[in-house]
């Protein structure tokens, strides 16, 4: 009797669920976030202040909104490098409308519509014409921002209606901003969409094996089309928040933000080659990046030096696990 039971014992590499959770990328990231939080609170006396921390969230809320949609896009094996330029174009369109006396609801509608249209433009090139998304979005990255430059030149749009400031400068309750609320709502929507729906399952399937996904009845091009639309839409939302917060539009608005968004997604554990990743990972990555930039800001580190950290973070996050695997493989041999 006992012999049989030992024969049929479960091999010990099938770990328990808690063990796997503890060893996951998200857990590691969370530990990093907590460590940064602790280090920051010792490094600067101004860090542990509810209002300062509230201000710090602006470092990541707008980027994270795009990062959620971008995560889905990257999981599906595509990428959109034009997001920052979509912000510029949407913001310019809103600025132009504000010149002609558009009210807040119209401005929001225009911001979202321009975002959607830009997303659709990318989507047509990628899914209908079958072109690689990297080249298409490098092209639209110049085109969208280029249109902003044509419209604005050296100028800037100001004079947004007072009620428009609510999105980027408003507070829901105490230190909790409108942007934070949007961030939470969007995170939940994308979390459910990716992890709990057929659509989310299709996104993973496409990223792992587009041909296999097609043969199992997934409308691959249509899913990709929707993902580009969503990324455009989220860029529109971010454009509304950013424009409302800054209160002005220049054609160089959000320059280089695509890099930070991609970094956030990759830092969140999404495989840059597609097929795996999670929304909770991106949420924690958003906090990590926000805390790092805020902490460095309190220590008077200039923005361009922070971008070195972002660049190192992007490469390091991908390089380190691979280096680790290489060293492990060498030791085994």
């Amino acid at each position, binding site marked *: 009797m006992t012999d049989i039971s030992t024969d049929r014992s479960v091999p010990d590499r099938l770990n328990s669920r808690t063990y796997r959770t503890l060893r996951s990328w998200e857990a590691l990231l969370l530990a990093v976030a907590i460590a940064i939080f602790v280090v920051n609170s010792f490094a600067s006396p101004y860090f542990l202040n509810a209002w300062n921390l509230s201000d710090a969230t602006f470092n990541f809320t707008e980027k994270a909104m795009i990062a959620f949609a971008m995560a889905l896009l990257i999981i599906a094996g595509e*990428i959109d490098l034009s997001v920052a330029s979509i912000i510029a174009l949407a913001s310019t369109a809103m600025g132009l409308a504000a010149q002609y006396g558009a009210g807040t609801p119209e401005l929001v509608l225009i911001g979202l519509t321009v975002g959607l249209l830009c997303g659709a433009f990318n989507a047509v*090139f990628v899914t209908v*014409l*079958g*072109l*690689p998304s*990297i*080249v*298409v979005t*490098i*092209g*639209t*990255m*110049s*085109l*969208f*921002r*280029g*249109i902003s*430059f*044509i419209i604005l*030149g050296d100028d800037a749009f100001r004079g947004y209606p007072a009620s428009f400031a609510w999105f980027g400068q408003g507070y829901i309750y105490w230190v909790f901003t409108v942007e934070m609320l949007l961030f939470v709502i969007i995170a939940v929507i994308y979390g459910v969409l990716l992890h709990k729906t057929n659509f989310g399952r299709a996104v993973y399937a496409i990223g792992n094996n587009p041909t296999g996904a097609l043969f199992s009845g997934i409308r691959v091009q249509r899913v990709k089309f929707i993902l580009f639309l969503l990324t455009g839409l989220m860029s529109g939302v971010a454009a509304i928040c950013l424009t409302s917060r800054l209160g002005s539009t220049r*054609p160089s608005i959000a320059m*280089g933000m695509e*890099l930070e968004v*991609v*970094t956030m997604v*990759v830092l969140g554990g999404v495989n*840059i*080659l597609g097929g795996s990743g999670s929304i909770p990972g991106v949420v924690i990555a958003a906090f990590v990046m926000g805390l790092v930039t805020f902490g460095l800001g309190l220590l008077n580190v*200039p923005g*361009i*030096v922070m*971008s*070195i950290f*972002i*660049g*190192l973070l*992007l*490469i390091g996050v*991908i*390089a380190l696990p*691979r*280096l680790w695997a*290489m060293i492990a493989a060498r030791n085994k041999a």
Partner: protein
Amino acid sequence: MLSRTFPIRETILAGAIVVLLALIASRFAGFIAPSNLARVFNDTAPLIILALGQMVVILTRCIDLSVAANLALTGMAVAMINVAMPGLPIPIIIAIAIMLGAVMGAINGVLVWKLSIPPIVVTLGTMTIFRGIIFLISDGKWVNSHEMSPAFTGFPRAEILGLPVLSWVAIVTTLIFAVMMSRTPLGRSIFAVGGNPHAAVYTGIDVGRTQFQAFVISGALAGLTGYLWVARYAVAYVDIAGGFELEVVAACVIGGISIAGGVGSVGGAVLGAIFLGVVKNALPVVNISPFWQLAISGSAILIAVAFNASAGRKKGRIILKSAEVTS
């Protein structure tokens, strides 16, 4: 035979440039005066040099978005060296610039080769890192013309046979590349790696190593251009050549270099760069605001890439055809 001497795509592009020139000349005859064309070519020279480097990288199925940042960092470094040591001969300055650029290219190359990180991610990262380092070494300050030695700023403008050295560098680079791509094992393996990496491995080509070499070439050219750029404009600061990487990629895509790798030609890259150069120089002449430049290169990328896709890949130079096509 005829199609070999006059490849269809290069002929179309050359035709487009001639038509463009004719259109501009119909209203502003002065634009096609030889002296002005030489000036336009000289203005386009940095783009030609960088496009050739980018071509090699794209042919191996990679992309280098860090070229402009590499250019700016090398430019700043040699400018600061010149300020510190005004007596240093120009050949040494050029050697330093090429070396520095090659080292930065090698960093990209190693990350792609040894850690197999996607090139787009690597070069997006190094692009910001290089820009940040410029700020760190220069403290955000400018190096202005009066601080540079006359020999330093004079070199790219010195004239040989009526053309500035800058133009000659572009011409010589083009000739070297024409020989390298068609007559050497390196050129052949670059095409093979992009055309079909699996088959390339079976023919004894190290794919990762070839990609590494491509990045080093692209980096070295960016370094060389960095010195020429800073010396020509006689100023160095953090943001020089900002966004220029997009123009370089645009020149390659317009020149018919397939982003999927393995298809492209030296002539195409040069003509693509010249096309953009003519457009850029014609804008102020026909009284269009220079702010149109960015949107025009963006549209040019999109039109060219859509055109390439519809023209089909079979006509290009694929040395090792993939199994799916032949069977």
